[in-house]
């Protein structure tokens, strides 16, 4: 048999990678619905250790498996096809409840069970690719090219599929794809047609069973998520479901006990919300469509929350609502008779619900002549808009539950960075307001970070007295900060005090506020907000930020982790309080990643390093050889560096392409496809069999990455002025050369092993797999602590280290 991989085999490998990447994205979607996003991230990151396990498994069984290569690949493809849906179905039966993690030790067992189970499909997929590297060691570049191009196609396909199918319906598609791949392969290796027919019939039967079994199957959503809780109420049911990669929208109606969603309502309020329909996103994060019959009196309750403040300070003309969602902020503006409202919403399905499907119920607010609707990402809209507004409003853009649980710690958001606030302020008319409403946390966290960010943004814009441009008002549940383009007048402050007294709110900060005026209606143990605001807007700013027990340093575009409040210094104190009522103090999102990283490092150590002590010969390492350490460093560095660069540039390009979904899709698929082409091309360099050639792609990666990251402001400035199409094209043009070179070092290393120590190819594959898992988690932690620029430069050092440890044939110790 030829030692060059046949085209159908390459196709099968591409299908495997495609399915594997699609499965990874799909699992994230599914677990975000049935559980919570950060646990999804943790579980799936760890499940990818299946790649590392595969490397070790192949390393120990390489000779046995290579003898039955065709059969082994076919079986692994079939197993991947079956395990992908089956493992998720089984995982749904595990009663994992993250909220109990710190109370009940059995939950740790469930968590481990989940990730071990979900690592199985990745293990089978990785076996197919890893074994092919070993078998076709002379043509690794083709296998890796198929692997990367397949993954690139997978990243595009899964996004497309998520637009047309509900996530749970995609599981059999992935299974089916792998079964088709197994059919492609079996034709190559089983010559007897009868075997082929039997195999085809068997595979088709398995596929049909899955499709039938999943027909009426529904997701088993955690009973503690908002949607499950709401559905317990008699007469409540889901009337519609809409799915897209942006989330699963569930519309609920309650016929017996009306839904009443009015967050932040004053304790003095006597108005109640009218009839509402509930909208859950990913089975949580409730928002409501409010019945509006054109009579503003029925919306009086919207004037009873802190976010209504700006409408009472002066007559406003044009208002911009960022994150308009189901329309409550638009209704609030309409209630206050605003003549021109620009409403910006990211999710077209949310807009369609209000504008079309439930337009009669919602009072046709999105077709109101006073309202201009924009389907866009908030920051992107502001970046490209030339309009100026009397008020820009961002209210409660995340749900209370997620916000209070500290789980958003590592979710990037470009809405609350210093640069974002600066951009909003630049779009205000003279005397206009930027209004930002957040949930109350005790002790305060996000509102204080917003004050610190606002102060920094105002200073950047040349304000010498930011303290004269900020007011802060608070209820028991929400706090609204107003930043004025100018300074507050005495008339405005008098109106503020009136608004405060009528509704029983506390004006914790305004220019000239006295301590005796604060903390009167919604009383905290200490006037925390007043103390913090006066410190953050005064001389003590830096000392206060340093002394505060949570991280309230402003987020920036380079470090867009607004919800990252964790400080190591505070951990011991909070840890000692967990048994009492201190759990909500724990910023668990960050800690979860630390736990995930420690776990990934420990498992990798067990998989990669421990066998070096006990089974050196079995792995194929010759006595006295130090080559394996070179291999270890080379493939570890590559595994870490590739994802560091990719993750950093995904985030950077979000600032150009703005829509997070399109940005991720464009960047990831372009990276993978161009790296695939780079891999194919790398064969020419590998064939020269000279270690110096590795310097070429690595030098190119270092130069291109450094140039992009250092000049990113220029690139952003240039591309932002262009059309949407040009932005996408420009981004692709920038990524292609970088991706092209990034696709080379891995196959060049493998090709070198193929010439010197082919037995270590599977082990190197395992090293790379483990490093990739560690990389994804570590990248998030480095970006949180130091920012994306540092992340990219860390990657460049790793690439340099890789070049130095390149396992060239001449390094072999004989």
């Amino acid at each position, binding site marked *: 048999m030829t030692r060059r991989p046949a085209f159908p085999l390459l196709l099968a490998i591409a299908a495997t990678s495609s399915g594997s990447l699609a499965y990874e994205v799909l699992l994230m979607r599914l677990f975000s619905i049935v559980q919570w996003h950060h646990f999804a991230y943790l579980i799936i990151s760890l499940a990818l250790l299946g790649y590392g396990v595969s490397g070790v498994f192949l390393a120990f069984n390489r000779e046995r498996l290579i003898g039955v290569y065709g059969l082994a690949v076919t079986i692994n493809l079939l197993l991947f096809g079956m395990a992908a849906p089956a493992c998720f179905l089984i995982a749904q039966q595990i009663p994992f*409840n993250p*909220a*109990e993690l710190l*109370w*009940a030790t059995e939950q740790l067992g469930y968590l481990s069970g989940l990730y071990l189970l979900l690592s199985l499909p990745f293990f089978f997929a990785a076996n197919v690719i890893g074994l092919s590297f070993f078998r076709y060691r002379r043509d690794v570049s083709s296998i890796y090219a198929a692997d990367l191009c397949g993954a690139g196609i997978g990243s595009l396909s899964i996004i497309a599929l998520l637009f047309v199918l509900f996530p749970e319906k995609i599981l059999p598609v992935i299974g089916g794809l792998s079964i088709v791949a197994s059919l492609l392969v079996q034709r190559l290796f089983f010559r007897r047609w009868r075997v082929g027919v039997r195999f085809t019939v068997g595979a088709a039967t398995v596929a049909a069973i899955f499709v039938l079994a999943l027909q009426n199957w529904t997701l088993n959503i955690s*009973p*503690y998520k908002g949607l*499950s809780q709401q559905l*317990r*109420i*008699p007469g409540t049911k889901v009337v519609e479901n809409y799915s897209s990669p942006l989330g699963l929208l569930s519309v609920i109606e309650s016929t*017996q*006990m009306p839904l*009443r*969603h*009015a*967050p*932040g*309502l004053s*304790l*003095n*309020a*006597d*108005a*109640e919300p009218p009839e509402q329909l509930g909208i859950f996103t990913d089975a949580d994060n*409730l928002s409501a469509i409010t019945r509006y019959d054109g009579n503003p009196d029925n919306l009086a309750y919207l004037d009873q929350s802190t976010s209504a403040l700006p409408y009472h300070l002066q007559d406003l003309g044009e208002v911009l609502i960022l994150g308009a969602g189901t329309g409550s902020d638009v209704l609030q503006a309409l209630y206050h008779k605003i003549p021109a409202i620009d409403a910006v919403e990211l999710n077209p399905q949310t807009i369609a619900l209000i504008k079309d499907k439930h337009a009669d119920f919602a009072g046709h607010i999105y077709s109101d002549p006073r309202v201009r609707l924009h389907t866009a990402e908030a920051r992107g809209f502001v970046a490209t808009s030339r309009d100026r507004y009397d008020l820009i409003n961002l209210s409660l853009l995340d749900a209370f*539950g997620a916000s*209070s*649980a500290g789980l958003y710690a590592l979710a990037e958001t470009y809405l609350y960075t210093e640069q974002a606030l600066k951009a909003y302020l630049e779009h205000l008319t003279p005397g206009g307001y930027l209004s930002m409403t957040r949930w*109350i*946390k*005790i*002790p305060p966290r996000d509102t204080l970070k917003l004050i610190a960010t606002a102060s920094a943004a105002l200073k950047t814009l040349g304000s010498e007295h930011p303290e004269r441009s900020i007011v802060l008002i608070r209820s*028991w*549940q929400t706090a609204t900060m107003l930043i004025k383009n100018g300074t507050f007048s005495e008339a405005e402050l008098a109106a503020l005090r009136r608004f405060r007294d009528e509704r*029983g709110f506390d004006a914790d900060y305004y220019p000239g506020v006295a301590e005796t005026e604060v903390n*009167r*209606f*919604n*009383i*905290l*143990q*200490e006037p*925390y907000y007043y*103390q913090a605001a006066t410190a953050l807007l005064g001389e003590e700013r830096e000392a*206060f930020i340093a*002394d*505060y*027990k*949570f991280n309230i340093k402003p987020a920036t575009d380079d470090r867009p982790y607004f919800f990252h409040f964790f400080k190591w210094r505070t951990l011991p*104190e*909070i840890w000692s*309080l967990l*048994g*009492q*009522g*201190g*759990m*909500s*103090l724990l910023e668990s999102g960050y800690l979860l990643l630390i736990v995930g990283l420690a776990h990934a490092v420990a498992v990798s150590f067990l998989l990669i390093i421990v066998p070096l002590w006990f089974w050196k010969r079995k792995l194929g390492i010759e006595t006295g050889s130090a080559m394996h350490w070179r291999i270890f460093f080379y493939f570890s560095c590559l595994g870490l560096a590739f994802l560091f660069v990719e993750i950093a540039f995904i985030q950077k390009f979000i600032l150009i392409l703005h829509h997070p979904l399109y940005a991720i899709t464009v960047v990831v698929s372009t990276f993978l496809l161009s790296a695939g082409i780079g891999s194919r091309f790398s064969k020419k360099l590998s064939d020269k069999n000279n270690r110096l050639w590795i310097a070429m792609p690595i030098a190119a990666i270092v130069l291109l990455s450094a140039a992009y990251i250092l000049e990113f402001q220029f690139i952003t400035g240039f591309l932002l002025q262009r059309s949407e199409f040009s932005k996408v094209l420009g981004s692709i043009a920038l990524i292609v050369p970088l991706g092209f070179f990034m696709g080379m070092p891995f196959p060049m290393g493998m090709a070198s092993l193929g010439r010197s120590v082919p037995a270590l190819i599977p082990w190197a594959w395992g090293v790379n797999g483990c490093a990739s898992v560690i990389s994804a988690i570590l990248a998030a932690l480095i970006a949180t602590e130091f920012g994306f620029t540092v992340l990219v430069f860390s990657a460049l050092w790793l690439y340099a280290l890789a070049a130095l440890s390149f396992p060239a044939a001449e390094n072999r110790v004989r």
Partner: protein
Amino acid sequence: MNKQFRLLFFAFMLFGVTNYALAGGEMAYEPQRNSLVDAIQADVRSTSYFLGKDALDEKVLQALRKVPRHEFVQEAQRLNAYLNRPLPIGYGQTISQPYIVAIMTDLLDLDENSRVLEIGTGSAYQAAVLAEVAGSVYTIEIIDALAERAAGDLKRLGYDKVHSRAGDGYYGWEEAAPFDAIMVTAAASHIPPPLIKQLKPGGRMIIPVGGRFTVQHLVLVNKDQENRITSRQLLPVRFVPLTGDR
């Protein structure tokens, strides 16, 4: 006749053994309950900064020593009944952490004449604790199955002064209003205005804010004699967000 006598004798024996076992079981739970109360007292001492007192009201402590929490949890959770932690009770609901139950009850400042409304009966453990310190308790549960189970448990355990019903708590219990105290343990996006209306002048309302397994903080709403409303946000642990020198 002889056969009937034997059966009767067997039934008596069985009754005796069961009673002994139950009494023994109940007695076995008592030390656990007392240790739990000791642990709660220690926690309260360390939280005195926020609660404004070093110890809970003796009536509340007595109630905690008396109410059999194990009777309000699912069979599978009985072993954990006297751990100071929330436990799942089915239907996506929980029985609250005893420490939180204790301080919430204490903050309501009840006496034997108090009339209390509870929104969100859940397991009915909280209602039973309230019944030990207040004159009458009215409790509403929105989930029918839970309401039915809670009513059965309360009746079985002799909590006759607890009036329970299934339904929507948003409009309170008009016929029994006004109340000296209201406890809202059901999740809500806001405090329903009708509940504030049903609070007597001088009355108190307590609301735990946060998730099912994690209380972020407590909100204590006060209505003064002039019907002015204020709230206090209380962290249930001693934690000051600034370092000591500030």
